[in-house]
Every structure is written in structure tokens, then in C-alpha cells.
């Protein structure tokens, strides 16, 4: 299997650019074929009527689709999502309260690094 991280990273960059994700608040990295995606996950073009339920479903579908696309990149052995506003629980994407998570992460970053 291919294990060239830069090749994976270049593919990953293109996958993210071509999706309807607002990736300005996301970071991504590749370590020995393992892809890391962190930050705040948002759709770039929200539903025009602003329906929250529709938006939630759209985001969930986009997350599944992104995961599938990333796993399809040659050389990718695993994908780790460390999102501030979404978490995968028993195979299902669920939204998490972002403020609390952001605060937790910020506290850790400040005190530990």
C-alpha cells in the first residue's frame, strides 16, 4: 500500500476544496497514512429556508460523504475526526455542544503546551 503522506495530504486538500464544506475553521494532517481532521465542521452553503432539521441532516450526510471520500484516497489507512461540534458515536454522527468543547480544548492547550 502507498504510504506517501504528502501524496495523501495533496489528495485530501483537493477533496476538501471540492466539497461544500467551509474548511476555513478546519485543519487536516496525515501521519503514516492516518488522516486527521480537526476543527469546526460547517457546510458552506446552508439551506435557503434556514430549517435546522434539514441543515442537521445535510451536515450528517456531508460528514458521511467526506469520510467515504477520504477513506477512498489511495494510501489512507484510517481517518480520525477530532471535530469540536460533531462526534461519531456507535457509527452515528451526533452534534455536540460546541462552546463547552471549545472551552475544554482551549484550557487544555493553554495549560499543557
Amino acid at each position, binding site marked *: 500500500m502507498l504510504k506517501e503522506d*504528502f501524496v495523501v495530504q495533496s489528495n485530501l486538500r483537493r477533496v476538501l476544496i471540492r466539497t461544500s464544506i467551509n474548511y476555513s475553521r478546519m485543519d487536516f494532517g496525515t501521519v503514516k497514512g492516518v488522516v486527521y481532521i480537526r476543527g469546526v465542521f460547517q457546510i458552506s452553503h446552508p439551506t435557503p429556508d434556514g430549517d435546522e432539521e434539514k441543515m442537521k441532516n445535510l451536515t450528517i450526510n456531508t460528514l458521511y460523504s467526506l469520510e467515504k471520500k477520504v477513506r477512498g484516497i489511495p494510501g489512507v489507512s484510517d481517518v480520525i475526526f477530532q471535530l469540536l461540534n460533531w462526534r461519531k458515536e456507535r457509527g452515528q454522527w451526533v452534534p455536540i455542544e460546541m462552546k463547552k468543547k471549545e472551552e475544554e480544548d482551549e484550557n487544555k492547550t493553554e495549560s499543557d503546551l
Partner: protein
Amino acid sequence: MRTKRNPIYKLILGEIEEEVRIHPRYADLQNQFGLLLMIEGEMEKAENHFLEALRLNPKYQEVILNLGFLYIEMRQWRKAEEIFLAEAKRHPKDGFIHHVLGILFLQTGRKKEAAAQIQRAVRCHSHYRDYYKRNGVCQRGVVHLHRKAEEALKKIHLNHHHAQYHNFVGLYLAKRGKSVQAVKELRKAARLKPDEFIFHANLGTAYYYQGAYPKAIQEFQKALKIDPFYGMGYANLSYVYGLMRRTQEALRAMKKAVQMNPRYADLHYNLALLYSDRKRYEEATYELKKALRINPNYLFARINLGVLYEDQKRWKEARREYRKILQITPDDEHIRRRLERIS
């Protein structure tokens, strides 16, 4: 001057108008709105928005040029001449500015000065030499401004804002994932003004999105030939080479990108990946440390650094990095397993 109405034009105009209303202090938006109004033939309104953009940012070159072209359109020769003479002083190697000055002098019957500007444009970029030759204006280095040549020349001063317009529409479409249409628009821009690096860079990016990698490389190379200090151009070129698995060329381009933008942690990170893929551990470690110095919270750089230490059997340093990572992301099972393995 009215251009053939693009069906997407109305949509873009409406969006920009709304954005200008929300953010009236953004020079960029004022400029974009002015350009769209100018293309629509609403000259006075366009002038107001360009002047507002310049009030907000007096050194905004794109606005200065747009205003200059607007004055040409409005046949306000003196105002236009002032703008382009000042720009020629600031950018003596910009062939298009000399070309426009040549046309301006022709419009006002100053043939000698027009010929001198045309000579300068020829020296700046081969595109002008070919163009003047084709139109019988310049032969064997001598400028001939006969009536037919004058007519031909007067037409292409419109190229600048038409090119800006197509570039703008192209970027708009690219952002919405319509890469085929975006490429069409951006190609028009680059054809109209071939010595403008940003048009080639944008076209290269659109080809990159589309997956037309050899064409993307070609356009990024054209952009870099015009502006060899365009650091992100090298980075984009490197990503495209990466997609084509041409990692030797990717490495060369990324090194250049880092050299041009030494404060971008992301570029150091990518360069480190290229080195570590080639097992050049020392150089990879150096680049990751640089990335971490710029951004100490750059988690991926720290993970890669830990793995790199592990590869070199530098266990103590690897453990140190993994522990730091787990303090930030305690749920990372991959890192936990790695740490357990070497503890």
C-alpha cells in the same frame, strides 16, 4: 460600454450589492461592485464606488486601474492620463500600462509619445510584440501608426476590465464548485491579459479543482514566470505534483514556497512530509520544529514529529511529543497506542 450579458451576471450583481450594503467599508467589495456596474454601462455609479474604494484604501492598484479605464470609457482623457502615467512610474515593467498610455496618446493626437509607449510595451512582454506585429503597428522594431493600425489598437484597451470581469465571474463560479464554467471564464481573462500573473494562477487553481493537472501545472508555471516571488504559486504547483505522484518536483516547488513564505507553518509542515516520505529525517524534523515554533498548537506537526522520532528510535523524544498530544486530545487512541508501545 456594455458587454454581452452573462446569465449569471444578475445573480452576482445582486449578491455583491447586498454585501456592499452590509459591509460598506470593504474596499474590495466596493471595487467589485464598481467593476460590475462599469460592465453594465452605469459609469457614474461605477465611478462613485471606485472612488469610495480608493478612499478606504488609497494604494489599491486594481481600483486605480479600473478607475483609469473608466475615465477612458467616459472620454475623460486628462484624468485617465494622470492615473496611467503615475502607474507607469510605479510599475515600469507592466506592458499593459504602457500599451494603454500609447492608446491614450493616440486618442489625443500625440503620435510620437504614443509610439514611445508602444516601444516600451513591446520590451515588457512578447504578447505585445506579437500583437503589434499582427496588426502592422510594429515591424522590425519600428512603430508605424497608420490609420488602420490605430483603429486596431483602440479596441484592446477594453481588455483590462473585461479580463477583470471574467476573472471575477470565474472565481465566483469556482467557489460554487462549477469548475467547468469557471475554467471557461478564467481562460477568457488570461487570454485578454496574458501578462497578469493572478489570472494564470486562478486558472491553474480552477484546473487543479477540475483534476486537469498538466494544464494546472502549465498555468502555475506561467504565473510564476511573470511573478517569480509568488510563494503560494509554488505551493499550489507542489500540491499538483503531489497529486501526480511527481514528488521530486513537488519537493523542489515546496522548498521554493517555504523560501518565499517562511512564516507559513503549513508550508513547513508539507515540506516536512515530503522529506519524511524520502526518509530524510533530519530535514523533516527541522521543518516540523519550524512549523511548531510558528504555531505551537499545530497538533499535526507534533504528531508527525513524534512518529519521526519513533522512526529514528529516539524513544524519549517520541514519548515527550505523544504525551503533549494526549494532553490536548486525550481521546486519540492511535497516539495512546503508539505511546504504550514505546513506554
